[in-house]
């Protein structure tokens, strides 16, 4: 069954990926599509910055600018950052807890394909009726007012990919609850697993609010309901609440796994265990918990009244405390350590002060009375790029480089990694630091141009220059990836040398069954413990035996495709005669695939003990 070593034709490889339910391959699918969308979103960012480089610019038109801006935010958040995190989670979390796969391999694949088709659907808007143009927040009054089908693409695309995200979230939760190896108690889980767990819980409770919000807005646009139509008693503030009840937890869905990645990398390259492990876990849970009680800080100027504003202001500020705990724990993790500055480590340490700068502006924004000035200005834009780029994107760079061997069995070129870092880091601060001041100096966000004579020219020009540096950095990374794919050397087990957690206890990349024998975990940093006791590998928790594996299936792809068709049907229901038909056909495709799934028994297959023994040295009985 050693399919990994076999050479396959291109068709067979594609089919393999279309039908795979293996978490490691799904991770690669997420990485590729998330990476692609990151480039698209980045390209859109570049267009934004070019347009804003000088006052009164007409590089893009006003309407087009709004489309670019909306698609930039939406793509980056939903189609780039989250899927890229999912890529790392899929690649690493099952390994970190010593599992052979996720709890629901089939659903894992379904989650991916739903995300994928949702993302494609959203981006097809560029070629069909124009992209959505109401901002990534798609506030109801403007979204209802927006002509054409742009906003419908947003609503349906996010609905489909949102279901995928929800499925992925549940899958990770169950995996972590039920599939941990013997001895892997909750308080021995690596922090990336912990943060995945909490982020998944946030997904579980936040996405339904988005689902409902999107559905209501879709009904209003496509079926003339009156949720947000004041003339019939509707109320657009409901959308704002629903969006932010989802939207605020969403930003923690992004940042918590990022925190987890850094918490895993820092100890490895400082060769020192994570300082204050239990308070790190506690802080993670607390951030997740508080994350649900602060959403109205995005609505300070909506007119909720001083009582609501004051409560939400105080609740928001409270989040600084657990986050601070994390920051100091990281600092004290590397304090007294023996730090090796590999590129993942450089990204990780650079993250600390950068994120603090973004976080503290968050607390400034939380000061409700002062936020009346900041709100909807470039100060906010600066805040969230500091936390998102300086936190999430840095973590993605760090994590991708760190786990590249786990995913592909090769190391990226360190020199090029460092060039990427330098360019990106400088570019990043150049772009966004100045935006704080632009905001304070009176520049609203989401403007397609600004007028000369308002003191905003220099700042914007600097900001644009910075963006080009980030683009250059990204291109070097792409070059690095290609180079590595062609020329990179294969690596063995524990390529960084100081691995502490279970993903480094098996070959990189791992065989399809991950662990020949489920490992026995004896404490936090399971591999490190064994290393310190002079053991080369983990003690197995079970005798070598047959390994049960799930079968691949094309059904997830088909189900998702069905919903893709439905989306077109819903949108074009009134424009084209085939619209209604598409709704039915799409639903039938999806339902038929679901039906097949439920009536065909799928017991999977087994990899036999003998084959495992033959594979190499063989396991211990």
């Amino acid at each position, binding site marked *: 069954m050693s399919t990994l070593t076999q050479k396959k034709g291109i068709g067979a490889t594609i089919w393999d990926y279309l039908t795979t339910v293996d978490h490691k391959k799904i991770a690669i699918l997420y990485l590729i599509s998330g990476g692609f969308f990151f480039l698209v979103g980045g390209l859109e960012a570049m267009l934004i910055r070019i347009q804003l480089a000088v006052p009164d610019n007409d590089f893009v038109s006003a309407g087009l600018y709004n489309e670019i801006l909306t698609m930039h935010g939406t793509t980056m958040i939903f189609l780039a950052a989250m899927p890229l995190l999912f890529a790392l989670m899929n690649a690493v979390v099952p390994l970190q807890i010593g599992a052979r796969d996720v709890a629901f391999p089939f659903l894992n694949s379904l989650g991916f394909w739903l995300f994928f088709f949702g993302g494609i659907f959203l981006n097809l808007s560029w070629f069909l009726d124009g992209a959505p143009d109401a901002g990534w927040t798609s506030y109801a009054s403007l979204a209802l007012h927006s002509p054409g089908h742009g906003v419908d693409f947003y609503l349906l695309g996010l609905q489909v990919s949102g279901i995928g995200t929800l499925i992925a979230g549940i899958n990770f939760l*169950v995996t972590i609850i*039920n599939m941990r190896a013997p001895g892997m108690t909750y308080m021995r889980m690596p922090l990336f697993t912990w943060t995945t767990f909490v982020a998944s819980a946030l997904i579980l409770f936040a996405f339904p609010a988005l689902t409902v919000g999107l559905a209501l807005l879709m009904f209003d646009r496509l079926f003339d309901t009156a949720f947000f139509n004041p003339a019939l008693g509707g109320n657009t503030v409901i959308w704002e609440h*629903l969006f932010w009840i989802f939207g605020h937890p969403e930003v923690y869905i992004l940042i918590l796994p990022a925190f987890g990645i850094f918490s895993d990398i820092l100890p490895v390259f400082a060769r020192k265990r994570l300082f204050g492990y239990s308070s790190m876990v506690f802080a993670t849970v607390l951030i997740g918990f508080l994350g649900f009680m602060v959403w109205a800080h995005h609505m300070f100027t909506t007119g909720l009244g001083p009582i609501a504003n004051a409560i939400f202001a105080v609740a928001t500020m409270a989040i600084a405390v657990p986050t601070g705990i994390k920051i100091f724990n990281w600092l004290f993790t590397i304090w007294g350590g023996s730090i090796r500055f590999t590129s993942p480590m450089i990204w990780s340490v650079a993250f600390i002060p950068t994120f603090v700068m973004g976080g503290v502006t968050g607390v400034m924004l939380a000061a409700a009375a002062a936020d009346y000035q900041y709100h909807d200005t470039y100060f906010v834009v600066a805040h969230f790029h500091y936390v998102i780029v300086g936190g999430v994107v840095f973590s993605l760079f760090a994590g991708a480089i760190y786990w590249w061997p786990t995913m592909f069995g090769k190391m990226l070129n360190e020199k090029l990694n460092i060039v990427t870092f330098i360019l990106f880091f400088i570019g990043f601060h150049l772009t966004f630091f100045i935006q704080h001041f632009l905001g304070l100096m009176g520049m609203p966000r989401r403007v397609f141009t600004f007028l000369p004579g308002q003191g905003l020219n220099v700042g914007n020009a600097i900001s644009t220059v910075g963006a080009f540096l980030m683009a250059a950095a990204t291109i070097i990374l792409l070059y690095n990836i290609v180079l590595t794919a062609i020329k990179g050397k294969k690596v063995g087990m524990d390529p960084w040398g100081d691995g502490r957690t279970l993903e480094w206890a098996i070959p990189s990349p791992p065989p399809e069954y991950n662990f020949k024998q489920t490992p026995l975990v004896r404490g936090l940093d399971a591999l490190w413990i064994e290393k310190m006791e002079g053991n080369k590998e983990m003690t197995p928790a079970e005798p070598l035996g047959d390994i049960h594996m799930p079968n691949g299936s094309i059904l997830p792809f088909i189900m998702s495709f069905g919903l893709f068709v439905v989306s077109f049907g819903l949108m074009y229901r009134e424009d084209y005669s085939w619209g209604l038909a598409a709704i039915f056909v799409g639903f039938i495709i999806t339902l038929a695939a679901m039906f097949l799934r439920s009536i065909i028994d799928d017991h999977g297959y087994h990899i036999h003990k003998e084959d495992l023994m033959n594979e190499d040295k063989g396991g211990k009985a």
Partner: protein
Amino acid sequence: MANVEEKLTAENFPASPERATLEGKNKFTGFWLFLGGETVLFASLFATFLALRESTAGGASTQDLFEIPLVFVATMLLLTSSLTSVYAMYHMKNFNFGKMQLWLIITVLLGFAFLLLEIYEFNHYVHEFEFTITSSALGSAFYTLVGTHGLHVAFGLLWITTLIVRNAKRGLSLYNAPKYYLASLYWHFIDVVWVFIFTVVYLMGMVG
């Protein structure tokens, strides 16, 4: 699991068949989590309804529309169907496949009756009061909330029916026991939601 295929008898049938295999356990946990998510989904719809419950735009109000007898009958149907599905699970634990199927069929029939009643009700509102999903914000919120519940009922019926038919010939196993169990959990959850619907939407709507 190797022992999924083993011949099952009442003796070796486990006490909690739904959680006897790892797959079963995963499904069980996953489904409960899903219900946690559904709670938020319905809460968002309830909250929207509550915010809009007086937005009649000059059309029919909840007091004009709702009548006690209809809601009462619907409630009784659904509550009873919850009990019948408990019976089904009782027989599952006793490894009595036939009775389990029977009680599930009764559950489906009750659920179906509920659904018919709901369709009648909506039809009534539309024709007697010109109260539609587009006539006012209240209408949108009402039909969306109650309709989403109705869709859940419909999906539940489809699910349970599929299970009944698919497994009719081959009996109970550790492979399908979790599926039955989840379907019954789902059915109870639908009932839980209904309890809030009849209280918050109908009864509160009648009070004013």
